[in-house]
């Protein structure tokens, strides 16, 4: 469908000519169906890169590909009906519920891990170590002077922890209670707001402790560290008796989990070759982190970065489409 290609193009800032030359690769490549496979694009760079990589690889195999902008969670409505076909990044940490709900209907299929691991945890800029020398150990945050260093007029004498949007879950309110941290949790409404505050504080070298996730450009742009909480375990979340506080659950860090690929259940029958290629797709955090940095901090286009990767890793992706 044309507008979707369009939007993808606008997004990737590719000139018209480049777009037109993107016609399917090897002439005569036989594919099961030339109907376009619709991959969803969201609004964070890492996802744009993974999706573009997958799309370009599928094109090399002779498939027709369309990029569609869609909301991260709302896209499941489209994946169920077959309006959309492939979503390249569903994070264990934020998308699990929606994904489970969708796969339970049988209309959506989980195509396995992307190879990237999502990290989500409390994070602080490195200069805060001067005021809380005990960091990154979480016990340093128990210290009143340390907590006060993170406080604002509204939260004093408690420290102010800037959590993610309420929809991300994460159990930070529960964690603060269970570990008896002298902190107040303030929720940002979007991740744009989250990183706007970080940018602001970092410019002033002011205190801040907040929810950061990776792969993302923030840990690459700003120097800082993750807080080391007691390690996550399923029991810690489920059973109050486990981990440090015997009376409360969530007295540990957040889980780190895979980022999944999902697809409309019909992909398997309609484009079996593409289905296999999507299943085979993997990339690790480091490679992705580098590409995200190239785009967000060095100002290159997603398309350029992906083209470079394709040129350098032909052995990798050609294996996916065999």
């Amino acid at each position, binding site marked *: 469908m044309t507008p979707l290609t369009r939007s993808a193009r606008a997004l990737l800032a590719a000139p018209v000519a480049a777009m037109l030359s993107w016609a399917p690769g090897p002439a005569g490549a036989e594919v099961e169906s030339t109907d376009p496979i619709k991959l969803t694009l969201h609004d964070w760079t890492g996802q744009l890169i993974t999706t573009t990589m997958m799309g370009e690889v599928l094109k090399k195999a002779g498939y027709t590909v369309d990029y569609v902008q869609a909301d991260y969670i709302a896209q499941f409505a489209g994946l169920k009906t077959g309006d959309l076909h492939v979503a390249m990044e569903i994070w264990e940490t934020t998308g699990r519920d929606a994904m489970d709900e969708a796969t339970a209907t049988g209309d959506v299929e989980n195509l396995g891990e992307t190879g990237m691991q999502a990290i989500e945890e409390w994070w602080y800029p490195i200069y805060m170590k001067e005021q809380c020398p005990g960091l990154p150990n979480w016990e340093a945050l128990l210290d009143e002077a340390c907590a006060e260093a993170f406080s604002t007029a509204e939260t004093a004498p408690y420290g102010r922890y800037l959590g993610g949007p309420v929809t991300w879950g994460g159990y930070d309110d529960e964690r603060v209670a269970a570990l008896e941290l002298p902190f107040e949790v303030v929720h940002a409404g979007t991740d*744009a707001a989250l990183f706007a505050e970080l940018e602001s504080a970092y410019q*002033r070298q002011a205190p801040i402790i907040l929810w950061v996730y990776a792969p993302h450009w923030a840990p690459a742009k700003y120097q800082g560290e993750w807080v080391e909480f007691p390690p996550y375990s399923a029991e810690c979340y489920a059973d109050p008796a486990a981990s440090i506080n015997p009376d409360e659950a969530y007295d540990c860090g957040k889980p780190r989990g895979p980022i999944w690929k999902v697809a409309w259940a019909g992909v398997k029958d309609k484009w079996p070759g593409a289905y296999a290629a999507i299943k085979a797709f993997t990339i690790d955090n480091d490679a992705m982190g580098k590409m995200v940095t190239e785009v967000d901090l060095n100002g290159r286009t997603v398309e350029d970065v992906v083209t470079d990767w394709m040129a350098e890793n032909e052995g990798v992706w050609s294996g996916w489409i065999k």
Partner: protein
Amino acid sequence: MSLWLVGQPFAEWAFKVPRAWRMPLQRWIGDAMDWLVQDASFGLFTFTELTRFIAAVIDVPYRIALSLLSTGWLEGQGSAAVQQLPPLSWLAVIGLAALLGLHAGGWRLAALAGGCLLFILLFGQWDNAMVTSASIAIAVPLGVAGGLLLGLAAYRWPMFEKILTPILDLMQTVPVFAYLVPILFLFGFGPTAAVVATIIYALPPMTRVAIVALKGVSDEIRDLGRMVGCSRRQMTWRVMVPSAMPGLMVGVNQVIMLSLNMVIIASMIGAGGLGFEVLAALRRLDIGTGIEAGLAIVALAIVLDRLSQAVADKQRTHEQVGQTSLIARHPYILTALALIGVTSLLGIGVEALRSFPESLQLSTGSFWADVVRWINVNFFDQLEAFKDLLLLNILIPIKRLLLDLPWAGVVGLLALAGWSLGGARLALTVGGLALLIALTGQWEKAMITVYLCGLSVVFACLIGIPIGIVAAENERVWGPVRVVIDTLQTLPSFVYLMPAVMLFRVGDFTALIAVVAYAVAPAIRYTVLGLRQVDPELIEAGRMIGCTPLQLLTKIKLKLAWPEIMLGINQTIMLALSMLVITALVGTRDLGQEVYIALTKADTGRGLVAGLAVACIAMIADRLITAAARRGLERRRGGHGPRR
């Protein structure tokens, strides 16, 4: 009141709605939606098939517009598509806009239209702007036509108007996020769903204005139509609609403005274009690009609005001139065709005409980011102190007070206010709506909403009405003020929300700033409108009896302009409520956040219930203010009588 506070230990139910009383409205709506999407059927086809069919119908003109403006005519699908015919080149589009401006409004308008589009081109937003234009080009005519037809129907059958009014209220006040998910289910993913959402949001003012304008057509014109023996159809299209044209154009203006307001939200469900550019830029904190794309939306709004107004004006004057106008129009059409032909031919040879060379594009680069950074580094402490002052002394105490009020008491007070302003019916309406909020379990969030919006409206009025008074007196002030408020209303609030977060952190204060910035516009606009309509003879009379300028203002002008100012306050409240969803993005805990959460969890029932609660608040405020304004008017009319 104090009775309620003392009564807390005895009447716990009055403070917290008992669980058993709550209506499971959320589940009902959710189930109804499931039924609609999966099972509802008209026998031959299902409801979903119907909506999908509508989507397919809308898709046809959309595709044509998109091909014309952006992609060109393509053969094949997706990445395999091959361009058969190129789209209009930027030169042709700018030329056509300028030509239309010249035709309808002379050189000044031509320069304005051309200049705005050139701005978009130079800042490298052309491709995005054309994608946005394509969806606007479909949404606006459909919104205008649909709104007009509904307005005509409501005008003809009073019964229909009675049913329609509350539906229009809902369409305007239920936050878009609340019905985004059902729309995706029904209309599928992509630009068409975005167009449908845009139409739902932008159509109500057209219908409202159409009803008022049609009712305003003078009896003489109507009688004339009847005397010359017009059929019903002729009466409608040849007499009523042309006579109501000035009013209808206000509706068209509102449809354009609201459609462009939706650009950001529409991009979240696949419309792409400028909205997506703004969103993506701010996610990587690229403030400069965000502002550039935001201003491109403003420029687009100005072009569309001014051109449509001028064309409508022109048509009206033409009708008086008569038939010669048809011939006079030909040179323009010929020039336009020539322009398209020449640029298309040139486009084959000259790459720069097909896509504007990147080397010629301008960018503010890191300028805006540097400005924000400079303010942030140098003035953060002062800003923080000011913010804390307001927050600790005004915002937080009011929030606590509102949250502590017993719901039963508030419902009672509202009903009482309704009684004293408009009698039993109003009391019943207002009290009933408030009760509905309480019984659906939204009371606490509703109170936070009232606190945030209420304070914003107070601030917006405190800022806006004085500015309006000054601007009404002084034409030199009004010019720039108008530009500023037009910009504030069309610039996506997301653009200034992120710098606000950087300077004021996440929280209520930042939300307050965003709401005030958006809602101050009607407070200014309607104050100016009201003051300017005051009869000059009355002012002269006031001067004769020796009023000082201050007395003139307070005793005569403001009193006479009161109905318009009240309408302005009403609109301020509506806009403040419509900003709720945006403020949810900076972490407020009100109904807007509830709607937003429901959207991200794709929970239709939850979103619509919270959305309905917002609509209830809006309707309570609207009904009470309308009643108060009417009473003020009656009292004033009484003042002219012989009694005094």
